């Protein structure tokens, strides 16, 4: 990355793997699990969080010297809520069916712990540009997990990706279905999201022994 210094690019790359907000920091699980039955919803959710966290981090970082520390949580909540309202209204205007599917989970970006966590841990102590990069990096790390989970759940659960029938047609028995493959409807149910994330954590930690917890 020629554009960014080494320190700055670390801000973006670190949360993608070794300091991932979901699998390592355990932040922002709620929305990650509830909407990942389809790849499309996961992608939209990831983009929304990138938008909210990127802009929100800049706003908080610009205001960091004027916010009295006693009421900072309320100030942060108001900033996030305003940004989330923008996302929600845009979705309602341009992708109504999708916004119905995501239902309350767009609203729950407000209480997504990643956002409050990054505000508290980073934006309150750093300049706007670095906060912006940090926000984008963490939101990307969150989005990557969301998209991986969404990919597997949609592929194994309904045999489609983004709505395209990649494994053939289950009714006309083409493609994989011709040799007796069946969709695993269980993948679409909510408990499987937890188990898929658990397996991702397993794979990641067995690759990188340093991340293993004592107990």
């Amino acid at each position, binding site marked *: 990355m020629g554009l960014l210094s080494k320190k700055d690019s670390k801000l973006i790359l670190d949360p993608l793997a070794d300091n991932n907000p979901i*699998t390592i920091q*355990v*932040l*922002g*699980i*709620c*929305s990650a*699990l*509830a909407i990942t039955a389809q790849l499309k919803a996961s992608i939209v959710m990831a983009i929304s969080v990138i938008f909210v966290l990127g802009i929100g981090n800049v706003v908080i970082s610009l205001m960091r010297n004027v916010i009295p520390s006693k009421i900072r*949580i*309320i100030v942060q*909540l*108001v900033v996030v*809520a*305003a940004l*989330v*309202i923008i996302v*929600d*209204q845009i979705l309602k205007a341009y992708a109504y069916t999708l916004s*119905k599917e995501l*239902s*309350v989970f767009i*609203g*729950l970006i*407000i*209480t*997504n*712990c990643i956002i*409050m966590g990054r505000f508290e841990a980073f934006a309150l102590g750093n300049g706007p540009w670095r906060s912006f990069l940090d926000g984008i990096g963490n939101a990307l790390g969150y989005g990557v997990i969301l998209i991986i989970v969404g990919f597997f759940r949609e592929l194994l659960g309904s045999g489609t990706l983004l709505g395209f029938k990649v494994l053939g047609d289950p009714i006309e028995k083409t493609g994989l279905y011709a040799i007796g493959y069946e969709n695993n409807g269980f993948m679409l*149910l*909510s*408990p*499987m*999201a*937890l*188990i898929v*994330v*658990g*397996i991702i*954590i*397993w*794979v*990641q*930690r*067995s690759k990188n022994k340093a991340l*293993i*917890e*004592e*107990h």
Partner: protein
Amino acid sequence: MEHIELFFKSIFVDNMVFATFLGMCSYLAVSKKVSTAVGLGAAVIFVLTVTVPLNWLLDQYILREGALVWLGPEFADYDLSFLSFILFIATIATMVQLVEIVVEKFSPSLYNSLGIFLPLIAVNCAILGGSLFMQSRDIETLGLALNYGFSSGIGWFLAILAIAAIREKIRYSNVPAPLRGLGITFIITGLMAIGFMSFGGMLTGGEDTPKTDETKTAVQKEENTNTTIEAIDEVVEVSTITE
């Protein structure tokens, strides 16, 4: 009957943790010991019971389409529902602060056990989620909203209590090293969620699948908006007649 049904439905069928994954962050972070889990669970029950009815009132008299009609007939077509996120979260944040002050003043012993958890709760998705589901599921009366808040709080409490107990025990078992800690907790929660799915048929006799439920609520919503519009029309008519 309505109350009993909602009560059990919110605890078991629509359990906040296992069915909708609300409040997962604190659920995973604070479930290492049973005693702290009980403290946080109690605080969640308390705050949900207070904020859901409050937000119900806000929703009913300020936010939804036509809600401002009590100010006068000319306000009948105001729709402020886009403001609900910001008003709900502001209510929750202030209520949490208020509850903290009141509890500290009147019951120091309760404050000592709940105290450290209260600020955490303002950003717990279970609390905001409770209010948002209350809005999207069209809870009809204040009493039902109170019931809904209380019983979903109990559901959350049960979930965190159960996982904390399991995590205390699992320390003595030989879990594969990369799964230790977070990984195994995820998988156990998944298995518990599968277990809780068996409650799904408890109230409906196994007829309702989640999908039909959704369409039903959507239809209900449409009907409700229709009825509110009719109600507004009636109100307007009545006011013109009295004039």
